[in-house]
């Protein structure tokens, strides 16, 4: 597992898995979309609009997952002086930002027909908007300082401060009254979603994970090369 903390080993490992991961993400995305559009049923309440969920929920999960990865790498990089952690942070921040943006846009398109509004300032929507702004600030930090050693540390500390937003997003629907409904899947009890709708959701989530890994491999490799040439 040393490829997770060492640039050289990462490069070797990434070259092996890149093609399979790329093929897998394309195949999974096609299969997932076929399931989402043709093989899954209409919801009893929302009709066909429920299909937005198959893009909205995976991108929401991925936006949180990306930030979680950045948080872990920030702790390790700062505490154990591990340069690869900073490289990963710089590389994946834009990926997380894009997932957050997809989540916000698809949620907005879903909100208009269902709730009757594109956007409200309830706790869930606001905290996700804050997550997007945090991602933007991290990206700006990563491009604003001349000195790599300085900017990567500032970015990592900022990531740690911003990580407080993750539990707020997760539990916002339980702690406060929100227009957004509570979680369907993460409850300890049986998920309140039918298996025929769970299948496309899971396929799409795995597809999004593999798409994220594909872009991350490319961006991390680029970042490694960029830093070698400074």
């Amino acid at each position, binding site marked *: 597992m040393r490829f997770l903390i060492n640039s050289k080993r990462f490069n070797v490992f990434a070259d092996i898995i890149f093609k399979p991961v790329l093929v897998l993400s394309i195949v999974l995305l096609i299969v997932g979309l076929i399931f989402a559009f043709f093989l899954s049923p209409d919801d009893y309440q929302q009709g066909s609009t429920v299909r937005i969920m198959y893009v909205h929920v995976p991108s929401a999960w991925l936006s949180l997952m990306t930030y979680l990865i950045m948080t872990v790498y920030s702790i390790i990089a700062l505490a154990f002086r591990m340069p690869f952690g900073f490289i990963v942070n710089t590389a994946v921040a834009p990926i997380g930002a894009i997932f957050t943006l997809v989540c916000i846009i698809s949620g907005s398109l879903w909100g208009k027909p*269902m709730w009757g509004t594109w956007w409200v300032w*309830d706790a869930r929507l606001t905290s996700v908007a804050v997550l997007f702004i945090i991602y933007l600030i991290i990206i700006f930090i990563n491009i604003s300082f001349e000195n790599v050693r300085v900017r990567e540390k500032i970015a990592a500390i900022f990531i740690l401060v911003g990580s407080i937003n993750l539990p*707020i997003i997760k539990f916002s629907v339980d702690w406060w009254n929100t*227009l957004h409904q509570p979680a369907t899947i993460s409850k300890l009890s049986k998920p*309140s979603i039918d298996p025929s709708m769970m299948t496309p959701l899971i396929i799409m989530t795995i597809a999004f994970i593999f798409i994220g890994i594909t872009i991350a491999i490319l961006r991390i490799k680029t970042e490694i090369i960029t830093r070698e040439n400074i």
Partner: protein
Amino acid sequence: MSLRYQRLLLIILSLILIITATMLILYNTRENISYFYTPSELNYSNIKINKLIRIGGFVEKNSFNKVSSSTFNFRITDDLNSIYVNYTGILPDLFREGQGAVIEGYFQNEKVFNAKTVFAKHDENYMPSSIKSKLENSGYWNKNY
């Protein structure tokens, strides 16, 4: 203790402090963060006549009246208390009796709420429409979906 574990300890301590500070802020401003009041959370202290607020709950069964083509009145309930709501405008597709809704508007007096905007709230349950009709046919459809 080696330097790297001192740094790790420092990071963890800072994180705990940040979390504590944030939680204190959120806990003490929770009334303002909540998007709406439920009928039971409303009492004489926070009912302010003619002030814009949001209330939320379920549309009470058998309370919906269509006064004219775009004027409606209904009651919003949380099973304990309920509030009488007047609304003129377009209702969202999901709006129906038994369905969750959030209403933005103001109290005309302590009993009557004038709605400016109505949002439908949907729950976290997802089910194919074919199963719903099966459940209805077999008489198992009694849950408040």
